[in-house]
């Protein structure tokens, strides 16, 4: 049973923003796969603004190395999009793992980010692509780094009258890139942990390493210090051991020693070693 609410279905971004600024207790409705579950379990809003009719927000385009992803792109659309597959493979892979086929047809990347589950599959790939989010309201547009946008699990910096309209990422063509996740069943499962990576190597040396580890820290974690330290380092067993050890230390520093780390730390360690080895 859903609580009572009234919905408005604007066809343009401008109309949507106007509604948002005039309504009290309004919630933006995109794919609905998270929101309707929460509403069934007790969340309530007097109004929802169903933005899925706004076609401008479904576009995926690129300009040089920058990729612009409309926030209403579904997980399915991203998983099969050619631009994403060529320049941000880990994101395509991650979106191909979200929920089930129906959930991927329904859920949107913008909704996924605003919901801000620490286990959301799209987060780690977006982080290694240095994603920015674009937030629009009647009063203007602001852009911020995804890392700053997500404040805590299930909590973001989005303001009541704002819509997350676009996500921009840097394409990394030519990188060895991927996404790996671990789940308790083979499909349709929440990630127990996940790793996205994009690595550039030349002649046995790391040129550029980008890693993001999901579900170990309050939000997916990018070990930037270690990434920097790997630059121009020889790709050998010792380098890898040291780097992985430092990443683990950093994770523990961020999160403290959690009970789940009995499982997660050895797994992250083994997976990172594999990933760095290629």
């Amino acid at each position, binding site marked *: 049973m859903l609580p009572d*609410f009234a919905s408005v279905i604007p066809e343009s971004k401008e109309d949507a923003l106007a509604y948002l600024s005039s309504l009290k207790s309004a919630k933006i409705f995109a794919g609905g796969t998270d929101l*309707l579950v929460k509403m069934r379990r007790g969340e309530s809003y007097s109004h929802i603004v169903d933005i899925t009719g706004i076609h401008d927000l479904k576009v995926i385009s690129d300009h040089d190395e920058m990729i612009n992803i409309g926030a209403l792109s579904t997980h399915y659309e991203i998983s099969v999009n050619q631009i994403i597959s060529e320049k941000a493979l880990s994101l395509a892979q991650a979106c191909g793992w979200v929920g089930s*086929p129906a959930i991927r*047809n329904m859920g949107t990347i913008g909704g996924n980010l605003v919901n801000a589950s620490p286990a959301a599959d799209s987060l780690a790939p977006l982080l290694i692509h240095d994603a920015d989010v674009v937030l629009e309201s009647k009063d203007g547009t602001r852009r911020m780094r995804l890392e700053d946008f997500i404040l805590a699990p299930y909590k973001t910096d989005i303001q009541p009258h704002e819509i997350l309209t676009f996500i921009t990422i840097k394409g990394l063509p030519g990188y060895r890139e991927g996404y790996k996740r671990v789940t308790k069943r083979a499909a349709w499962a929440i990630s127990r942990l996940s790793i996205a990576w994009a690595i550039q190597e030349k002649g046995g040396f790391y040129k550029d390493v980008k890693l993001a580890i999901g579900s170990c820290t309050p939000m997916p974690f990018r070990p930037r210090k270690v990434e920097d330290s790997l630059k121009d380092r020889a790709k050998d067993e010792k380098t890898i051991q040291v780097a992985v050890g430092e990443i683990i230390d950093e994770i523990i520093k961020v999160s403290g020693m959690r009970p789940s780390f009995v499982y997660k730390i050895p797994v992250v360690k083994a997976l990172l070693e594999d990933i760095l080895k290629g």
Partner: protein
Amino acid sequence: MKKIDFTLNGKQTILDVEDNETLLHALREKLDIKSVKEGCSIGECGACTVLIDNEPHYSCLTLASKVSGHDVKTVEFLGDENLLHPLQEAFITYGAVQCGYCTPGMLLAAYSLLLKNEHPTDTDIKEAISGNLCRCTGYIQIVEAIRNAAGLCKCNS
């Protein structure tokens, strides 16, 4: 209250729905399409699967107001007593049905797959039905049925 105008199983349908009404509720209670089942109401079982523009969606997490202007299909679209769809024939022949509760959703997920992929591998089939739980069959005979229907069925026609 919203008036929605959509295509349901090939027929134009106009209907008044509540703002907070799910497509599942509208189909079952207002249009009397009881083949769309409720199994969990949170998008975790697949019994309420319908096709929207030929792609599987969970009708329990779809607001009815969203389907205006779209094409919605339920299992009734596939066939009737006089002319079963090849997928339905195959589900019968290969023993893909036990209790029957997941069957309508399963058939729709399979139909959507075959629209896009006339010669799916077993992995393609398993992926396509991975959002539809079945507790009875272990899926084996369902996969067998879909594989065998694939050759026979021109879903596009």
